[in-house]
């Protein structure tokens, strides 16, 4: 059964320095509020996992929370590069960042394997690319046909964090619209936190929705606007101006640090 707690309590209880933490959201329902809470609580040496690290990962990396990033595409969607990610990789600022880099198909297969409690995922992929020499991937033969395939080790984060539209009072969660890899993230992770736009008396069934029963979740925290500046389908659209503005804010270390101080460190937790 999920405990309904504040976001600050959920993070304090379930995340530890050095953990592998996946905050997922494939361009929609990105758990920005939860990422900010991780920053405020000052975690260090995290291995951060996400298929599409964007602004909130740039912020966590720029604040020195991460030792390693497992990812497949790291950019500011529709805008360009992540300057804090680049600074960490290219110059080790504020701390060096180790990369484990996959393709989207590989990450997706690795999450499915984790959610299925299998040791690896299998796909046709990576072959012939320079990624093979730079990441955790192996060639295996199909035991039935002999076909050569790629194996990726299962993703098993210590903590999976997602944002959803709604939970009920028992902690059952429903998300809809573009649901990405969030179900797999929760099921692959040893512990999980779900932030929601609102807690309702009863979840209304919706076509195409993902429902996660309360007993696979550790903590549910109400965080209205918790995906901002990203989208929450049915609640708000992406604040595109912010994504564009982030390019300038994040280019310079001092501007970035001052912005984080004012907008994240001094902000009140949800």
């Amino acid at each position, binding site marked *: 059964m999920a405990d309904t707690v504040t976001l600050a309590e959920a993070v304090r209880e379930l995340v530890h320095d050095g953990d592998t933490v996946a905050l997922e*959201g*494939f*361009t*929609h329902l990105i758990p920005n509020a939860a990422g900010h809470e991780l920053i405020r609580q000052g975690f260090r040496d995290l291995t951060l996992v996400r*298929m*599409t690290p964007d602004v909130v990962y740039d912020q966590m990396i720029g604040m020195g929370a991460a030792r390693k990033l497992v*990812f*497949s*595409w*790291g*950019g500011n*969607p*529709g805008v360009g*590069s*992540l300057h804090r*990610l*680049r600074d960490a*990789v*290219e110059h080790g600022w504020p701390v060096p960042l180790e990369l484990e*880099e996959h*393709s*989207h*198909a*590989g990450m*997706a*297969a690795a*999450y*499915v394997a984790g959610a299925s409690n299998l040791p690896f995922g299998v*796909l*046709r*992929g*990576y*072959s*012939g*690319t*320079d*990624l093979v020499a*730079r990441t955790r991937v192996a060639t295996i033969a199909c035991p039935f046909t002999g076909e050569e395939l790629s194996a990726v080790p299962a993703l098993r984060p210590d903590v999976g964090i997602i944002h959803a539209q709604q939970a009920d009072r028992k902690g059952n969660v429903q998300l809809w*619209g*573009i*649901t*990405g*890899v969030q*179900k*797999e993230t929760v099921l692959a992770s040893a512990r999980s936190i779900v932030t929601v736009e609102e807690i309702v008396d009863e979840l209304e069934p919706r076509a*195409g929705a*993902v429902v996660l029963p309360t007993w696979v979740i550790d903590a549910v925290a109400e965080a209205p606007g918790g995906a901002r500046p*990203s*989208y929450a*389908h*049915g609640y708000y*659209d*992406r604040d*595109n101006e912010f*994504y564009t503005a982030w390019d300038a804010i994040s280019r310079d270390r001092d501007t970035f640090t001052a912005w984080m101080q004012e907008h994240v460190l001094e902000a009140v937790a949800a």
Partner: protein
Amino acid sequence: MTATSSEIATYTSDEMMAVEAARRLADGNVCFVGIGLPSVAANLARRTHAPNCVLVYESGTIGAKPTKLPLSIGDGELAETADAVVSVPEMFAYWLQAGRIDVGFLGAAQIDRHGNLNSTVIGDYAAPKVRLPGGGGAPEIATSVTDVFVMLRQTTRAFVERLDFKTSLGDRVRVVVTDLGTLEPRDGELTLVRVHPGVAVDDVRAATGWSLAVADDVGVTEPPTEFELETLRALETKGRE
């Protein structure tokens, strides 16, 4: 064409690229689309000669029919207008890997003469000069779709003799649309088959970091028609609202 010469002259190289790529899509093609010029091209095709083109965005929306150009692949309108919305693992396994996509658009920071692409790093991987966003869907798009369309501005920094990193393979690249012209593979090597209006073959050679093969019958791209430009600009204006 009914437009006057002054009217046809006023289009940007981005518009030429989008129009040229859109024309390559056949009606009914199932195409995997990213944000930016590929999204413009695919949406333009759907509103002009290819109304039954199926737009698939890797975020999980199959058959999306956006009324405005999406700001990112997470745009809610893609889900609202789609024939089906699937999870990301399903998208890559059941739809892409299984071979259900005809055309995939790719961009990159670097391309070589075989159509191999780099979207990972400039410089050495371990100590990069520029860390790029990374491959994302590209490695498997490049080997799973029937036809890869590449859209890329042509400069000697992008069109290189040797890639700094091979992110995806060029085996299925059928066309490369640049701001200067169109390249297609001939005898295993990208060959200039058309220049855009006002561009000389030597301009394209000068913007290519290898000794560029040029087709004997190299032609000139048909400039955007009034209808194509109007449709394209209506799309873009809506996108900026």
